[in-house]
């Protein structure tokens, strides 16, 4: 069917392939969910606050988007490796090791997906009418309550879209991941890195096809979901 691979073979995932797919899903969901609170906080700062160094923060958030991923991965290795300042801190404080573990892949995924996530959330917070927040303030609500009951629910579709985009970006993350945590089957070999391995192997073509199919399905599903959410936001805005 595809380049000499039949349908049966196209769907015959080996255990190693399943492992890579499931690991990717785990890495991407943990990365996206764990970075979400930070994403919302940073997006809110960028959308609603004026402070010195705002443009620096904005640039720092977008840096992983423009830096070569291999550079981001290497910087993560320096900072979050077992000898790195942050790596040592997390190991001592929480027993959390990043280097050459799936947790490191999740960290790389979170960092690489962060710009897209923040961008989507920031836009959705900016779209929340500040006059509603003002009105809530005149009714006696403290700032945190206004955020929790007005800003957050009205920005929710955008926040969800940001989560999905961060997740989708993480699924395909390659450069930073392979630099930071290498490509260890069962441990750090994700969808993207195992496609890379299978392309290096003359007998790996069926694997490449199957994993490519999975990658396309996940990417398309994520884009459709985030489009649907965007449509919902504009519907709600025109409805008011």
């Amino acid at each position, binding site marked *: 069917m595809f380049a000499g691979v039949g349908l049966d073979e196209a769907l015959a995932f080996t255990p190693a392939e399943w492992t890579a797919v499931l690991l990717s899903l785990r890495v991407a969901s943990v990365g996206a969910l764990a970075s979400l609170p930070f994403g919302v906080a940073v997006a809110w700062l960028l959308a609603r606050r004026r402070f010195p160094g705002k443009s620096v923060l904005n640039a720092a958030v977008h840096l992983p988007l423009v830096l070569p991923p291999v550079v981001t991965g290497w910087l993560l290795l320096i900072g979050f490796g077992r000898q790195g300042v942050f790596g040592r801190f997390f190991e001592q404080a929480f027993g959390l090791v990043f280097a050459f573990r799936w947790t490191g892949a999740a960290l790389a995924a979170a960092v690489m997906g962060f710009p897209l996530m923040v961008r989507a959330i920031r836009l959705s917070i900016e779209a929340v009418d500040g006059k*509603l927040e003002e009105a809530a303030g005149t009714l006696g*609500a403290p700032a945190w309550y206004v955020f929790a009951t007005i800003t957050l629910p009205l920005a929710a579709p955008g926040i969800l879209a940001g989560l999905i985009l961060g997740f989708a970006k993480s699924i395909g993350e390659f450069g930073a991941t392979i630099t930071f945590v290498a490509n260890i089957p069962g441990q750090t070999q994700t969808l993207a890195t195992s496609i890379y391995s299978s392309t290096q192997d003359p007998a790996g073509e069926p694997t490449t096809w199957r994993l490519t199919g999975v990658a396309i399905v996940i990417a398309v599903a994520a884009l459709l979901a985030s489009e649907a959410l965007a449509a919902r936001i504009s519907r709600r805005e025109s409805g008011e």
Partner: protein
Amino acid sequence: MIEIAVRHRLGAFAIEADIRASGRILAISGPSGAGKTTLLNMISGLLRPAEGRIAVDGVVFLDTATGLDMPTRLRSIGYVFQEPRLFPHMSVAGNLRYGARFARKDSRLVGFDEVVALLGVTHLLARPPARLSGGEKQRVAIGRALLSSPRALLLDEPLTAIDSARRRDILGLIEQLRDAFAIPMIFVSHQAGEVERLANDIAVLNQGRLLEMRAGSSAGLPGGAAM
């Protein structure tokens, strides 16, 4: 007693006004751009004047001479904005109850059922704001402000967004509020005639300056001038 003495500059627009009113309902009228809404924003704390003193019934909200500037949420001002600003993701009941959580416990002004009945919104409680008419939205906004147990009620052009048939309803409602609750009201309108009947005092503003203070037709009525 309502005291508003402020001085402020907003780009090319300057506002300098000293308004003192002893009645319960103060109307601020004047052409658009006179600074009426700016004054309401200063009273509610949404805008801080460069200089001035604002006090309602002896509670000082702002006094730049002593550096006092009470945060908006502690001023307990029921602000009914020109556009209703209802929360679109909450039902009418959710909107009405929003401020009640923060109402000063010792000063609960009115009960939920009382306000709902007075405003005639009982049949609308479960609806989202998107499915209300302009007049209904305005009534819900007034109810939401009242249920926060405010020290004063600010109404910014409460009649402009409403067709003329419904105007009399809202005017009647404000009259009822005046008679039912001992709450100072500051009412902004670009048409002096509209507010004449309700107000105890009328402040006429033009280009950020107070042109004149005069008595409204309610000046001698019970409910007015009792402060």
